């Protein structure tokens, strides 16, 4: 039985009039308040690879080494894993660069995909920040930078444990337990220092430096802990933004820049804070567990993160305004995200998931 089937022609006209009126109202509303239809971001899985069946040595060339948990995986540019093996003693990786301590020769080996770069005698504690290579000495009371030919660039001892290290293209920021940061250039010359103060117990918990080396971020002090943004002046770095935090975690929590130096992020309590460094507008997003990995898509303005605790992990996609766009739980203790074009690669414990970002 259709609605129009048994009604009179007068009623039909009346209904048609109402229908036209409603359509007209919708049309007027859309004309007066125009809005684009929202697009949904989807992560489309392309390939999932279990790494347990992979060879322990590289048979084919790789573009990236990833340290995930106690294992190292080599990946092609497209994110395809080519080898998977247990991490060596004190192994540190970055891009295709690798460093570890070889007990049999009592040397610290530094290699690239093309082969050995150099070695250092004895047991060193290697650390990469991008393409820059450091070793820690004297139980984290000293740090040394080498170039990729093995030449020592500079070395500094401190009378306090080094708690945070960050590097830009030319500068290195060293933060320590005494609540002080020092900024060194590639010759080891001091280019700035800062002691945030304002807390009962001065400590540097984390630091980051922007790619243009104009800004430094700090998580410092206890009671209260504080978040600071420093800006490079003519001679020194000086604070341009600070915020007291209720967080009292006595260990380093995530901190960094996104989208060049447009955004600064940090984790406080159970929240993810995203600060627009141009407008000082801050978005706060609740986190479930700890932030394990984070990437930012510059073209879409979207953040993709892995959070969680223990083996319970969650893949999130967020907008910079704090709107959650995607939420997908999975099981993995160690997880790492990175981006290659429009592909997002998730390395989690013993599998690799290659995804493609699509807007529909």
């Amino acid at each position, binding site marked *: 039985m259709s609605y129009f089937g048994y009604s009179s022609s007068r009623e039909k006209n009346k209904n048609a009039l109402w229908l036209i009126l409603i359509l007209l109202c919708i049309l007027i509303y859309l004309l007066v308040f125009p809005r684009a239809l929202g697009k949904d971001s989807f992560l489309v899985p392309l390939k999932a690879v279990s790494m347990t069946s992979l060879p322990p040595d590289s048979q084919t060339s790789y573009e990236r080494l990833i340290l995930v948990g106690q294992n190292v995986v080599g990946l092609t540019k497209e994110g395809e894993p080519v080898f998977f093996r247990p991490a060596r003693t004190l192994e540190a990786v970055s891009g295709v660069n690798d460093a570890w301590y070889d007990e049999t020769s009592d040397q610290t080996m530094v290699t690239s995909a093309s082969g050995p770069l150099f070695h250092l005698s004895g047991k060193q504690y290697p650390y990469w920040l991008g393409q820059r290579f450091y070793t820690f000495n*004297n*139980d*984290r009371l000293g740090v040394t930078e080498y170039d990729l030919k093995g030449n020592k660039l500079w070395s500094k001892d401190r009378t306090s444990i080094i*708690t945070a290290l960050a590097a830009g293209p030319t500068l290195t920021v060293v933060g320590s337990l*005494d609540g002080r940061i020092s900024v060194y250039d590639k010759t080891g010359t001091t280019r700035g220092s800062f002691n945030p103060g304002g807390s009962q117990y001065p400590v540097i918990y*984390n630091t980051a430096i922007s790619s243009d080396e104009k800004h430094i971020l700090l998580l410092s002090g206890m*009671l209260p802990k504080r978040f600071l943004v420093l800006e490079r002046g003519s001679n020194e770095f000086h604070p341009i933004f600070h915020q007291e935090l209720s967080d009292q975690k*006595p*260990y380093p929590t995530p901190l960094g820049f996104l989208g060049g130096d447009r955004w600064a992020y940090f984790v406080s309590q159970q929240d993810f804070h995203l600060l627009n460094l141009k407008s000082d507008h801050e978005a706060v997003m609740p986190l479930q567990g700890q932030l394990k990995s984070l990437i930012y898509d510059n073209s879409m303005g979207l953040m993709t993160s892995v959070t969680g605790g223990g083996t319970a992990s969650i893949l999130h996609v967020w907008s910079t305004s704090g709107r959650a766009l995607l939420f997908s739980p999975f099981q993995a203790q*160690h997880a790492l995200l990175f981006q290659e074009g429009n592909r997002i690669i998730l390395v989690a414990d013993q599998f690799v998931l290659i995804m493609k970002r699509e807007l529909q």
Partner: protein
Amino acid sequence: MKKALPYSLFFSFFFVGLCLSQAFAYDWPTPDFKIRKNFAQRTGNSYEPGLEFETTASNLNAPEKGQVIFSFTPDTGSAQNLPSSLGGFVVVAHSDQLRTLVSGLQPQPWLTSVSVASGDPLGTIPNAQTVTTSPTPTRHQLMVFDQQLGEIVNPLLVFPPRADERSPIILDVKLVGDSPESSASLFAHSHFSVGYWTLYVDAVDPGSSDSGNSQKGLYSVSAYLNGNEVFRTALTSLQDKNGQFTIKGTGKPLSDVIVGDHEWRLGKIFLNQGTNILELVVKDFQGKESGKTFHILGSSS
């Protein structure tokens, strides 16, 4: 006047007692331990910034009341997972501006900075054997930082004294000329040419009999040439000068003084024509000392 003496004695003892109780308000992280390396002791290219000790205990405790301000557990997924030999460690800030670090443990799962009392557990020792038949000792670091002065302090200045029955041993004393080949031990030679020589001392502290075969570093070294002091250094604390460790009170870089495992470079001395008397005194922290006197014949040939 006669009655004032006992009162003044009483107050003197009271004051000394108060000072001692303040001085040793700190207690060792575990009662059962052996010191393996002393403060500023060199091994290869690295220096011991505190004390290295070994223990069979299953947990380590706060040396004194304070605030837990740093807790580190190595994990590849953590922020600022900086590598070192420390393993997991905990730093407690105390009311006297000192901060103590105890390493080689799995810290308590603190989610916030907490106040701890003296003796409160800081963490458990990973791989500590619970079987008491033959527990394997684990090695740890104990460091003391002076937040006010920006120094690393010799922990033995802060912690209660340890029993020590053995005096330090001078293994070798040598003079090195301008060319490296012009080097000779004073144990084997007594004739040297007149002029400047660099004086080196190789000495160890065997410590107490329960320290096993460990040869620890010294606390202080003094040298006198013909009755004049030419060197005196005690390792009380280290300072940072232009990114280099320097020995407090001397301003000398640590790497210029302690140049090898147990080897101290005391600097240049000038040998005169005729007999030169060189006296050396080495001490451990407990004040036990050893000395050697050498009669060096300076000749112009």
